[in-house]
């Protein structure tokens, strides 16, 4: 029960943040792919940096053990193909799964149609799963991290990703400052 209270509370905060950023607005999200509106990248990179640095430094300061945090398993080909198909869908609907809920909650019908499609998509995969299971389970690498792949320490990888992400954010700011 306690777990579900946390789930609801975290969800409320998540939905609130996405809505405040304007990520329930399909033309705004699609605008990212036309380099017209950089809200998606700004929010994603800022959030990722905050969590990554928070997990690293919180671990250093003994607030929690980031080693216990869940690292999604890597399945090279399914995640590569999945990402390509997902990106195509993202431009078509102008929403992603989380933001489709935000769109619906702020009164946009597009949110409901995208959610309907999402149900159809997962249902389709579930129904055809015996046929696609070999591909689904192909090229597994376990919970592989960037630092293990690159042979760097956790701290060095965090520093590297920070430099890259901040550079991208700075490039966006410079681009937007152009008249």
């Amino acid at each position, binding site marked *: 029960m306690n777990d579900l209270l946390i789930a609801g509370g975290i969800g409320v905060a998540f939905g609130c943040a996405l809505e405040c950023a304007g990520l329930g607005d399909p033309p705004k999200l699609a605008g990212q792919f036309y380099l017209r509106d950089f809200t998606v990248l700004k929010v994603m990179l800022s959030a990722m940096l905050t969590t990554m640095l928070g997990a690293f430094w919180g671990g250093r300061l003994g607030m929690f053990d980031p080693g216990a945090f869940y690292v999604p398993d890597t399945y090279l080909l399914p*995640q590569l193909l999945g990402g390509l198909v997902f990106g195509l869908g993202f431009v078509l609907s102008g929403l992603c799964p989380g933001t489709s809920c935000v769109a619906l909650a702020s009164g946009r019908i597009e949110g409901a149609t995208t959610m309907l499609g999402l149900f159809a998509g997962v249902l389709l995969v579930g129904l055809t799963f015996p046929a696609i299971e070999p591909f689904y389970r192909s090229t597994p690498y376990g919970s592989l991290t960037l630092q293990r792949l690159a042979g760097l320490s956790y701290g060095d990888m965090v520093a590297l990703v920070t430099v890259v992400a901040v550079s991208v954010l700075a490039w966006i700011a410079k681009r937007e400052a152009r008249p």
Partner: protein
Amino acid sequence: MRPLRSYAEPHLTGVCLGMVLLACFALTGQGLGASGAFASVASGVMVTVSPETAMHSAYFRSYLQDGSPWIAWIVVEIIGVLVGAATSAALAGRTRLPFVRATRPSAGKLFTGVAGGTLMGIGAALARGCTSGLALSGGAMLSVGAWIFMAALFLAGFLAAPLMRRLWP
């Protein structure tokens, strides 16, 4: 229909979202998610409609093994997202009234919404997560698969965008 208040500053909102995600990791050991809720509810529907079909698929089974798929952690989280987003939009005067003609989308838009959703459902199921659960949460934990998914997503998006220019004038 002009919004009463404009959207918040994206970097600042991103930092807030990052703190929510960090709190989620610290409290539960796992990140945020979205597509898993759709998969969980779809599994719940399947097992109600046709238990044999549901049990024949290891994909549906994986969502049916730990308790009811209707009140899985991620489903409750997504109900929270709906409540949080609805509250935030209403308080800021940003809620669209779907029956106002100016904001009603065309039939074509609704179709591309369903088509895009279907593709994203397939993609997220294959990849084992979406923008929230895999790209953002896994990306922050420096998972290789999360970064591959994110790179592929943006690559496909940027390549497909010029072909769909008519959708987003």
